[in-house]
C-alpha cells in the first residue's frame, strides 16, 4: 500500500474520479425523474455501482494494489452479499408460483 514510486502524480486521477462521482450523482437524480418503468431501479443501481467501483479502484487503491489478495477480499465480500440477496430471493420470488 506504499507509494509505488509514481513518477506521475495521482492527483489528476483523483480529481477526475471526483468529478465523475458528482456527475454520476446528478445523473442518478435526473434518471429518477424519468419514467423508465421497471428500469428505474436497475439504472439507479448501475450508476451507484459504477460510482462505488470508482471509489474502490481509485480512492481505495484497489487498482494497482500490490497483491491479488486485496481484490480477492473485495470480490469475496461481494460474492457472499449477492449470495445472501440472491438465494433469499429464490424464496420470495417464487412463493406465489401456483
Amino acid at each position, binding site marked *: 500500500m506504499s507509494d509505488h514510486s509514481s513518477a506521475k502524480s495521482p492527483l489528476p486521477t483523483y480529481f477526475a474520479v471526483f468529478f465523475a462521482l458528482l456527475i454520476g450523482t446528478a445523473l442518478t437524480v435526473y434518471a429518477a425523474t424519468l419514467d423508465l418503468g421497471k428500469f428505474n431501479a436497475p439504472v439507479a443501481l448501475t*450508476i451507484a455501482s459504477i460510482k462505488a467501483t470508482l471509489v474502490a479502484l481509485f480512492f481505495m487503491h484497489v487498482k494497482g494494489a500490490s497483491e491479488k489478495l486485496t481484490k480477492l477480499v473485495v470480490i469475496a465480500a461481494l460474492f457472499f452479499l449477492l449470495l445472501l440477496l440472491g438465494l433469499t430471493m429464490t424464496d420470495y420470488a417464487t412463493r406465489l408460483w401456483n
Partner: protein
Amino acid sequence: MQNNASSAAAVQADAHGEAHNPALLHHFAEPQQQRDAASLGMWLFLATEVMFFGGLFCAYLVYRRWYFGDFAAASKSINMPLGATNTAVLICSSLTVVLAVWAAQTARRTLLLVSLAVTMLLGLTFLGIKGIEYKDKFEEHHVPGASFSFQNVPIPGHPDQYADPHHAQLFFSLYFVMTGLHALHMIIGLGIFLWLFAMAWKGRFTPEWHTPVEIGGLYWHFVDIVWIYLFPLLYLIDRHP
C-alpha cells in the same frame, strides 16, 4: 495502528546493530509485513461491514418488492435535495481523504492537516444535514412507533390510491435503521479522523510510515460507498414529477 513512543519516525539502530523503524512491532520481521498485515486486516473488516449492511439491504429488497407503491410514496416524502447534498458532501470528503493519504505519502504536513480537518468538517456537515432530516421526519410523524401517521398519502403514479400506512411504516423502520447505522459508522469515522489529526499534528506520519492514515481512509471510503447505495435506494424510488 499503534506505534512506539517517539516523535519523528527516524530510523534507529537497535541492539543488533540493524536499522529498524521504531514503529515496527516486535512480532513482525519488517515494516512492509506490518503494513501489509494492517491493510489486509482493514480490508477483511470492511468485508464484514459489507455483510453487516448486507442484511439490511436484504430486508429492504424483500419489502420493496412486496410493497413497491407504498415504499415509493414513503420515499417521496423524504427530502431528496438534502439527500443529494449529503451525497455530494461525502464525495467531497472522499476526495479530501485521498488527498490526506497523498499528503502523508509525500510529506506535505500542512496539506495533510488541512485535508484531515476538512474531511471531519464535511463529516459533521453530513451529520448535521441528517439531523435536519430526522427532525423533519419526527415533526411529520414519520418516525415508527406509537405516534406514526401516514394517512392519505397517494401512491406515486396512482393518484387514486393511498399508501398503506403499515407498509410505509416498514419503509421508515428500514430508513431509520439503515441511515442510523450509517450515521453511527460516520461518527466512529469522525473519531478515527480526530485521532489521525492528533497524530499528524504531533508529526508521527512520514512517507515511510503512515499506515493509520491509509487504513483510516479505507474505512471512510467504505462509509461513503454505503451511502452511494443508500441514496438511490431510499430517496429515489419514484421521483417522476
